[in-house]
């Protein structure tokens, strides 16, 4: 197992669906080198995917010429992943477990908006900064449990 001091991996992705998989693979490889378990790596991949998709679609409006910035900060006991877009700010819908709907007939209204729900439930810590001028930044932290 390679011991890594704090280092940063930076990715600049075109805002086109599919490129989130580049971030997923990179984050997974870094997490693997750090010694994260397979199931936590799968959690990480899903969270990174969802953050990138939000940035691509809602932040950068699928404009392939605008980049999604992904930063992977490797620390002694945790991995911090920041996903930034350059949009005007994302308003995150608050979704919840489907059974907690007050009116089951509104099931179809919950179709979208699961990205942030998954991020918050899969990562150890999540911080969002929304700036109408510079875009939205989602920071996700996953702690290494030895």
């Amino acid at each position, binding site marked *: 197992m390679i011991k890594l001091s704090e280092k940063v991996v930076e990715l600049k992705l075109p805002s086109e669906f599919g490129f989130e998989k580049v971030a997923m693979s990179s984050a997974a490889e870094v997490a693997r080198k750090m010694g994260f378990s397979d199931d936590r790596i799968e959690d990480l991949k899903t969270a990174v*995917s969802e953050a990138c*998709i939000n940035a691509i679609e809602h932040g950068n409006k699928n404009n392939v010429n605008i980049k999604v910035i992904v930063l992977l900060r490797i620390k002694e006991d945790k991995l911090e992943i920041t996903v930034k877009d350059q949009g005007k700010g994302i308003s995150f819908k608050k979704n919840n477990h489907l059974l907690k709907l007050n009116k089951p007939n509104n099931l179809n209204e919950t179709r979208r908006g699961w990205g942030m729900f*998954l991020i918050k439930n899969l990562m150890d810590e999540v911080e969002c900064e929304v700036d109408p001028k510079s875009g939205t930044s989602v920071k996700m932290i996953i702690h290494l449990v030895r």
Partner: protein
Amino acid sequence: MNSSISIDIHEKDNYGILNLKGELTLFAENAVNEAIAEFIDDSKNIIMNFAEVNYINSAGIAILISVITELRKKGGTLKFVGLTDHYKKIFNMVGLTQFGNIYNSIEEAIAG
């Protein structure tokens, strides 16, 4: 970089079986809807097999919610097979498993 999905469909013991292969994302919506439409007026009982699906994102979950919504209108049922442990967790987390049970195989899903 559009992702792709292919869906093989057949009928068995009054179940419509959808064997999905590839990725369940936004781009899979038409294919899934067309596959569901093959059965929804007849058998109404659907088994979705994810054994060859390597990526499901929130847009894919949205598609499944739409499928559940349509099946509920027709009184149909939905069962899931072939999910990895990770996606079983995701389905539970979202609440999909309250509307469709997870089985280890198509045979178990038909028997269950």
